[in-house]
């Protein structure tokens, strides 16, 4: 086994757990459902990690119309209400490093390496992976998945309106 820096870091962080862990990574799969409406706009989606006491909040992905002229797309970021509250509104650089374009209907996987700023210094403990979707002229949905970082686990939830199946897995 090649002992990488990543592994060392993860082991150090995983001090609370008995078994030593390799560099963990997090995969979040987000399904955007196909919705039959006259005027369809791709949803804004935010994926973030949040500790139970809400003190630790880490953005994993924010998909919005970031390429609109005059940054007009920012105007609707507040419709990702809980993300805006927990994370967005207090940022100088909005969703720095995790911004992406809005996505079409289908399954999308976000791979986050342990070296990613969202995870690199994340203290071991209980978190939620929160996926929030909000669609122009449509609805809003929030799904919450439990996550005991950095233990190997998979959690999933089924959306009912703006989200399909959402899954988060930690791979050692």
């Amino acid at each position: 086994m090649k002992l990488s820096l990543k592994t060392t870091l993860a082991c150090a962080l995983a001090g609370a757990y008995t078994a030593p862990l390799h560099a963990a990574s997090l995969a979040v799969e987000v399904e955007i459902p196909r919705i039959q409406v006259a005027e369809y706009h791709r949803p804004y989606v935010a994926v973030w990690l949040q500790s139970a006491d809400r003190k630790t909040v880490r953005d994993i992905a924010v998909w919005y119309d970031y390429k609109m002229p005059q940054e007009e797309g920012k105007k609707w970021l507040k419709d990702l209400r809980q993300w805006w509250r927990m994370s967005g509104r207090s940022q100088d650089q909005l969703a720095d490093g995790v911004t992406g374009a809005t996505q079409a209907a289908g399954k999308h996987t976000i791979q986050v390496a342990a070296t990613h700023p969202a995870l690199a210094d994340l203290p071991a403990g209980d978190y939620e992976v929160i996926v929030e979707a909000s669609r122009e002229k449509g609805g809003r949905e929030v799904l919450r998945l439990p996550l005991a970082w950095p233990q190997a686990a998979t959690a999933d939830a089924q959306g009912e309106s703006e989200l399909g199946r959402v899954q988060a897995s930690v791979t050692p």
Partner: protein
Amino acid sequence: MKRIIPALFAAALLAPATSFAHDRWLEPSSTVLSGDDTYITVSAGAGNDKFYYNHNRLALNNLAITGPTGKSVKAENEFEGKLRSVFDVKLTEDGTYRIALASDGGVFARWKEGDANKRWFGKAEGLEKNVPKNAQDLVVLERVDRIETFATKGNPTELEQVKKGLALSGDTHPNDLYAGETAQFVLTLDGEPAKNLEVEIVRDGSRYRDSVEEITVKTDEQGRFEVKWPQAGLYWLHADLKDSKTSIKAASERAVSYVATLEVLPQ
């Protein structure tokens, strides 16, 4: 009846004189905003039911908008209709804007001339000119009145303490309210805790339900009170009182009233 009297004086001064004992409010189009130069539009009215424009507009001459850094912000496109007044607010800086119709220095006088009941509303300076010197059974009341709402672009910022009359402060920011959570507020009177005062809270949309569903809470010795928001919506919060802390010589009593419009968002 106790509650209605202060509202009567206040409403009569802010709105054209036909307004009696109606609820008053400011209704913002949004309270939580993102992006660059954003606008909100605010309506102001008085009526029997909160947020239903069924009686009269509110005059905008006492409108004061304060930006996040304490700077005064000018309203745009002011308009006074029959049933409501409207204005726009441009939010250029990040932070919290306080939007208030606040008046003090106003008085209400009533007296008798023979069998006729007379009354006059206006600024204290006008008393001498409008009220006979030795009027029979003359009662003069001072009025301190505040109707307000808040809007935040970006991160909420701390609000300055209001020094005169009733006002809201506390641990929970008025633009950080979510259904199912408990907000902790403090009501102040002249900047000090307003003790043991009843606070009335009513959600919008009363037309589409059979009862008003009002929430009544009382402030404690520190002026504190808590509200657990039953659901998302626009909420009308109201308190009033009378005391003897007049600053106008001719006034025997002071009537203080407060209305805040708060928006509660879903989880």
